[in-house]
């Protein structure tokens, strides 16, 4: 899973795909994840960081992380 390099993201959760012209918004945790993806953090590290910052069980977050990646794929924001 690779987040497209040309996607512009902001700290406030605004996302812009210059390739398609589509724009998106994300909640705070989604914004955190996008910045981790851009920094090429590993899955394990992302899980550790999120579980340290938010009140969530690891198992719950892992499921939601997979769902978020599915959403990114559906919106054509991942490299093929």
């Amino acid at each position: 899973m690779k987040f497209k390099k040309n996607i512009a993201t902001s700290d406030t959760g605004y996302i812009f795909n210059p390739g398609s012209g589509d724009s998106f918004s994300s909640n705070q945790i989604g914004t955190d994840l996008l910045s981790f993806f851009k920094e090429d953090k590993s899955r394990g590290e992302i899980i550790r960081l999120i579980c340290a910052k938010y009140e969530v069980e690891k198992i719950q977050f892992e499921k939601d992380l997979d769902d978020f990646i599915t959403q990114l794929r559906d919106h054509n924001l991942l490299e093929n």
Partner: protein
Amino acid sequence: MEKLRYERPIIRKLNAGLVNKFGTQARSEVVSHLEGASVKALIREYGSPLFVLSEQQIRRSYQNMSRIFKTRYPKVQFAWSYKTNYLNAVCRIFHQEGSWAEVVSGFEYEKALGNGVPGKMIIFNGPDKTEDQLVMAARNDSLIHIDHFDELYTLLRLSEEFQLKPRVAIRVNMDTGIYPKWDRFGFNFENGQAWNAINKITDSDRLNLVGLHCHIGTFMLDTNAYAIAASRLCELAWRIRDKHGKTIQYLDLGGGFPSTNTLKGSYLPGSDTVPTIDQFADAITSVILGFGFSKEELPLLILETGRAMIDDAGYLLGTVLANKRLSDGRSSTILDIGVNSLFTAFWYDHKVSPAQEGGQYTEETVLYGPLCMNIDVIRESVSLPLLNKGDHLVVHKVGAYNMTQWMQFITLRPNVVLLDHESHPKLIRKAETIESIESQEQIPEHLLINSLS
């Protein structure tokens, strides 16, 4: 460092376009308490899903409707429609308020007697009354509303045989301009069938024709249809007086007033489109008052309102079992509330509220029930905060028909709790168990041998 509140990560495409003429998307109102009772605590105590009824709301609805009609017309009587919700506790609230009972089967008739309703205050409607039931109703001086000629002739024979003279009305169906026309119940007005039935009754001298009844439809959105129905019944009453010299004691306009639920396919919410009870009352009472009856002859107006009196008083509490992403990217949530409990999900887009605070983000989601059946959909699309497994939801306006039309299908029917006049929860129907269901079954002897052990 204190951890932050968690919310599922979500990304949403922004669509530029025309501004929504109805304004921005409203945030889902959190309903964490019902009349002061905590949703979480109710579920902890009584399980999930859980039906909750509000006694205060039932009484408020009754008193409001009663006031609306009684300030417009001098003689009004409500009869609680048992099929709408025949939990005994519910029926007894209505009877305490002064409602008679309106029943449509022997089963409901027995329930009404069991709830202490005097026979003369039971209206016996419906196309299926056995001979035994007709005799019982006649002996109890109940109001028997005749549905068809076969029943009329049966009742004439029974009255002769048992030397009875029951009080009866006929149910009249008519064209009130609504579609579909409800002509399967009662005698038709336009083709003369109703008048024919009236003549048979009055000529026989074995039945005491005291009233005229109609029930023109359900979830009626046109007040004028009631004005037409009232006018037709007045016309018949007038003709009966002229031809037979008999004064009709009551006109029963039946039920059919809508609640403020939103019908599936509606563009606007029910609360914005449904006529008020005042408008229905105006339509009905102005016709009767203006028809020409003298003050002494004015018939009693009976109303069998069900749905509009109790829908608002019912809630169904449930719990999120899982979240799932569908193949087209849509979000879906699986609840422990299925269409087996929430039968009215087939008719309405029920209002659904989260029972706990969520973030500012919402997501369009499909709400599925827990049944392993494709039809088990509670809402096809609803905007809700990001729900997590274990979160609770409140489905609103479920008081009518669910606790009578629910099905024991795949899962068991849940507890029903009444928040009493002080908002204290009282269990009024216990959840089913496998024992309560299987107590009705019998296994033939040759099937008692277990070959798989």
